[in-house]
């Protein structure tokens, strides 16, 4: 064997070895997409307006609080839009004080003053920043929830160019309704002191306040006990005693009547606030409000200074479990809407894998048979180079962690087609050269050399197409573009380099004068 040839064979063996190492064991190394594995695909939109509204409300309230402690009394803030609020009723004498405080506290807002009314508008760059933050935070929260759910290899990632879309993929999960509940629940927990209620209608609740909701209070609704489904109205303090942010952890437990409940543990800051308020308000009720609904409103019997507390309500075991999960993983900064939901049953995925493998093997077998009949021994070259192409393609996918999808399998079968095409191009050219009465060695060498440019041209054109497909494509199209792309790259190697080496290897075993080629 020539020295040159020996190196080529070594290189081929090395590539095969690398590919095999990459894909063994296939069940662990080849990542299957949702369409092959079964699972849920959700496309969500984060209502980033929510986050801005909360920010504006909180800033306005904190500002009024700060003014109050500085001795300036003003009207309750008016929220004009999600990014704008107005403070009015400011006495002329306090103007300078308000300006100084606003300079310190409301640095994120532009200020406009006319008469005694101060309009604060959130700066544009802050708005953009807050929206982006709320999406990032939503992704992190959903990730925590999904991880708690015990899903293996979930995907939670930003999607698209609008900046507020998230794609969530949960392989192996089949209960869409529950998954959506867990992902989409805002889980904003807040404990508010009850000022009045519960009462069955809002009018009688407010009769003691002249029919108006006082500025520092708000009305929330919810059930009063687990046996009574009627909706009751509560008048509560607007600023909560503790919120979900003061939680250390939460877990599912059972209540006094053996009913499912959720217990939570406060962090040290939460405990401090909680014990201070409970000590000052023994005998009053504390409304536990989850996502603007009262879950329960127990009475404060004694000052509470230990960190553990319990929420009882009308929960089933599963609901209590899920509530504990979402409380543990923190609140979403904004609500979510669903843009796209797909569910693939596990049996369909398994069937698709089976069908895809069957189709690939049968395709490969038919094509090989044809090549052997038509090109005789050179058909073996075609078989070796195409099989090796598929092996290298799998190796690429495993090595890069690319996901195999159903259209990806179609890309596999097309890769077989491309491999055949390159081989046919080369073989036909070798035949032409043989017809022109060249010797076997020259014919093979001329065949490969002349066709190489063509193969390069066709492959580069297809690579361009595959690249754009990947860039602009979504889900299934991407899987297809991935296999097509790497199939094209490895095909140049196998159809040209490997196949040529095989020819040279066969010729090297014959004496120089008697070189013949079966094609």
């Amino acid at each position, binding site marked *: 064997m020539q020295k040159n040839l020996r190196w080529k064979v070594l290189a081929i063996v090395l590539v095969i070895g690398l590919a095999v190492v990459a894909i063994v064991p296939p069940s662990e190394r080849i990542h299957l997409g949702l369409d092959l594995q079964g699972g849920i695909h959700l496309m969500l939109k984060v209502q980033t307006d929510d986050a801005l509204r909360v920010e504006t409300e909180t800033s306005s309230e904190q500002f009024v609080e700060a003014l109050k402690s500085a001795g300036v009394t003003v009207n309750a803030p008016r929220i004009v839009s999600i990014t704008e609020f107005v403070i009015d009723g400011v006495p002329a004498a306090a103007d300078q004080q308000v300006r100084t405080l606003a300079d310190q506290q409301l640095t994120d807002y532009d200020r406009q003053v006319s008469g005694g009314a101060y309009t604060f508008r959130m700066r544009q760059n802050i708005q953009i920043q807050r929206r982006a933050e709320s999406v990032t935070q939503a992704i992190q929260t959903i990730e925590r929830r999904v991880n708690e759910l015990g899903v293996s290899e979930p995907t939670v990632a930003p999607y*698209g160019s609008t900046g507020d879309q998230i794609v969530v993929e949960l392989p192996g999960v089949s209960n869409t309704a529950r998954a*959506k509940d867990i992902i*989409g629940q805002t889980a904003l927990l807040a404990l508010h002191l009850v000022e009045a209620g519960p009462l069955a209608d809002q009018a009688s609740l407010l009769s003691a306040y002249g029919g108006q909701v006082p500025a520092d209070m708000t009305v929330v609704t919810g059930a009063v006990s687990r046996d009574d489904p009627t909706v009751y109205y509560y008048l509560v303090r607007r600023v909560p005693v503790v919120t979900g942010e003061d939680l250390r952890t939460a877990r599912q437990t059972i209540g006094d009547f053996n009913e499912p409940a959720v217990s939570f543990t406060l962090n040290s800051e939460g405990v401090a606030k909680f014990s201070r308020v409970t000590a000052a308000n023994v005998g009053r009720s504390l409304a536990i409000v989850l996502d603007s609904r009262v879950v329960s409103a127990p009475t404060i019997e004694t000052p509470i200074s230990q960190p553990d507390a319990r929420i009882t309500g009308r929960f089933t075991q599963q609901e209590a479990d899920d509530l504990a999960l979402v409380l543990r993983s923190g609140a979403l900064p904004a*609500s979510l*809407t*669903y*843009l*796209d*939901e*797909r*569910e*693939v*049953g596990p*049996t*369909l995925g398994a069937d*698709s894998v089976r*069908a*895809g493998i069957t*189709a690939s093997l049968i*395709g*490969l077998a*038919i*094509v090989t048979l*044809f*090549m052997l*009949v*038509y090109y005789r021994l050179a058909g073996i070259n075609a078989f070796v180079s195409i099989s090796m192409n598929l092996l290298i393609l799998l190796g690429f996918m495993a090595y890069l962690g690319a996901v195999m999808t*159903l*259209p990806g*399998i*179609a*890309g596999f*079968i*097309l890769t*077989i*087609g491309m491999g*055949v*095409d390159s081989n*046919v*191009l080369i073989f*036909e050219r070798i*035949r032409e050269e043989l017809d022109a009465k060249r010797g076997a060695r020259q014919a093979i060498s001329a065949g490969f050399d002349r066709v190489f440019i*063509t193969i390069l*041209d*066709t492959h580069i*054109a*297809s690579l361009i*197409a*595959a*690249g*754009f*497909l990947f*860039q*602009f*494509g*979504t*889900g*299934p*199209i991407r899987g297809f573009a991935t296999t*097509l792309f790497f199939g094209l790259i490895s095909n140049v190697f196998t159809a040209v380099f490997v196949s040529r080496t095989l020819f040279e290897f066969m010729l090297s075993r014959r004496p120089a004068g008697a070189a013949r080629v079966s094609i």
Partner: protein
Amino acid sequence: MRIFSSPNFNFIQWRWHALILSLALLAAGVTSIYLRGGVPLGIEFTGGTAVVLRFEQPVGEDAVRSAIAGVSNESVVQQFGPPDAREIMIRLPLIAGQEQGEALSEGARQVEEAVRAADIGAFEVRSSDSIGPVMGLDYQRKGIWATISALAGILIYVGFRFRFTFALGAIVASLHDILLTVVFLSWAGYDLTLNVIAALLAISGYSVNDTIVVFDRVRENQRQMRREPLDEIVNKSVNQTISRTIITAGTTLLAVLALLIFGGEVLRGFALTMVIGVIVGTYSTVFIAAAIAIILSRRPASAQVQGRAQGSAKAKRA
């Protein structure tokens, strides 16, 4: 074994027949699509719900149809796959304003409940897709962009490597293939889905591939046959590559037929698109691409000589 021994067909002579045939087919296709109110789009693009149920025992479409009569009066119920698969697909149009919160998959849930309540046999949900209008538009836009940019990329590359008129020939041929394939698909009653778009783009790649092989041969022949008119050079090149064109088309067809027969229901649209596209693509390589390149290259005699000299100069550089 050989299909053709030294073939010498006069393909170029038939170029006008071929162009007229293609234009007639396209006109008929476009008319029929127009009369039906546009290209039938899959729910990925229009928004809506599609649920596939598999029953333990065979169930008629009518039984399912009457079971879900209360859910929507615009639903489409059809057999999914071969009858022995016992699968039924139910499609619901998008209900206005459905994209809010939990409501998106409400249709799918109602279908499931209605079929369960009708008690027409045990079943499992094979797949369920609910796509809102925002994503539908997003997918449409992306599908169109992927197609346009892929074709533009190919045009630039082929124009750079060959003459510009050849690049136009290749792109017109591949647009021809995409359009004709869509026409045949609509006649076969298939919707344009994301998978079909992927297949159409694969077809355009395949078609350009085929065309490049011929053009490469033209470029090579131009070096040896400087005195011959372009028609003859192209005709000779098509003849020289005809074995390869037919064999490649045949083997690719075998591979995608395997996909069509064994690949399962989900990939059926994809596989059928490929089967049609390979046939159309082969036809266009032989009859359309080269014909258009020749027609576009027709220039006054002096310019033509110059153009040819340019072409061969380029070929040498390559």
